[in-house]
């Protein structure tokens, strides 16, 4: 056994070791990536008050829009959007479409390249999971319709 190995020392054994080492490192790397992506110990809870708007997105083949209230609340008081810009207190109840945004209505009033980044950054808004229905995430009404036990699985 030993003499055989010694004879093939520079060939098979080292070759096997090298291949295995490479594969092992690759797998470790992918494992880290996959772990960070896939595994959530509990069903994830998106940020409270994130509004998913999916009136036209699914049909257009885009991911639904996720509007983060928290980010905007740090920068604007409620009055600016809900009184001055005409947003109603109704997830999906404002008839917003890309044309209106490009024209400067609704989101486009600030997302124009001056006050905030402009409208060509599609994926920053259209970042929801495809097929998510319009909802206010974490709202009481949502909690009334799904039980916490089901969420925690």
């Amino acid at each position, binding site marked *: 056994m030993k003499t055989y190995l010694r004879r093939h020392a520079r060939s098979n054994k080292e070759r096997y*070791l090298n291949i*295995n*080492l490479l594969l*092992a*490192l690759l*797998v*470790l790397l992918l*494992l880290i990536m996959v772990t960070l*992506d896939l*595994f*959530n*110990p*509990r069903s*994830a*809870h*998106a*940020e*409270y*008050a*994130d509004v*998913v708007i999916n009136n036209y997105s699914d049909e257009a083949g885009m*991911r639904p829009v*996720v509007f*983060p*209230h*928290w*980010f905007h*609340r*740090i*920068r*604007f*008081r*409620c*009055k*600016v959007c*809900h*009184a*001055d*810009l005409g947003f109603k*207190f109704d997830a999906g109840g404002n008839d917003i479409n890309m044309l209106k945004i490009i024209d400067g209505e609704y989101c486009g009033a*600030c997302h124009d390249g001056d*006050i905030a980044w402009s409208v060509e950054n599609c*994926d*920053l*808004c*259209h*970042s*929801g*999971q*495809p097929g*998510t229905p319009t909802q*206010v*995430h974490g*709202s*009481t*009404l949502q909690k*009334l319709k799904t039980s916490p*036990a089901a969420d*925690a*699985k």
Partner: protein
Amino acid sequence: MKMTIHSLIKSGAVLCTVFMLILFTAGKSFSADPNTFNRLLAPASERNPPPPTDGIHDANGPGAAALQTPKTAFHDLPKSKSGNYIDWVKALDEKKISPRYDRLDPNAVPVVMDLNIVREVKGSMPNVVYPHKQHTEWLDCSNCHPAIFIPQKGANDISMAAILLGEKCGVCHGKVAFPVSECRRCHSQKKEKGSTKVKQQK
């Protein structure tokens, strides 16, 4: 020497692979222990998750990774026990945030009204105190009046059920502002004695 490191990495990778395969097939999650303390409550480390893992954003899309994680923004803000886990009113009072009152003018000052409304409630819960001050710092009068609340005493019928269903106070509380699981934030005035006294017919 080389051999040992190699074999260590190899055996480690093999173990991890086997573990991963088991998890893939069994579909279990890490915290499968049925006897964990307070299993339905997400621990503090899992609050305000970053967009790629928060269950709403599509982790496969380019957007989710580019967005700011809430924890970065919430770092210096005073915390609370529900909703975003941030006390927004306190954050405003302590000037940790300075949200604009006008879209274009960063120095616009809100018209704040300091008027408290005390609503007596049925049952043993303390009475509700509604403070206009904290609300008018954020909202305009037209946001609530007259569409949600008629600005007249006795004109608004509010019950917990209505609030939970998203009417009246529930238009914001339980959607954007703190949820109604925080009873004492509203029910904050102790009743004097006994229950409601009813005025007899004149």
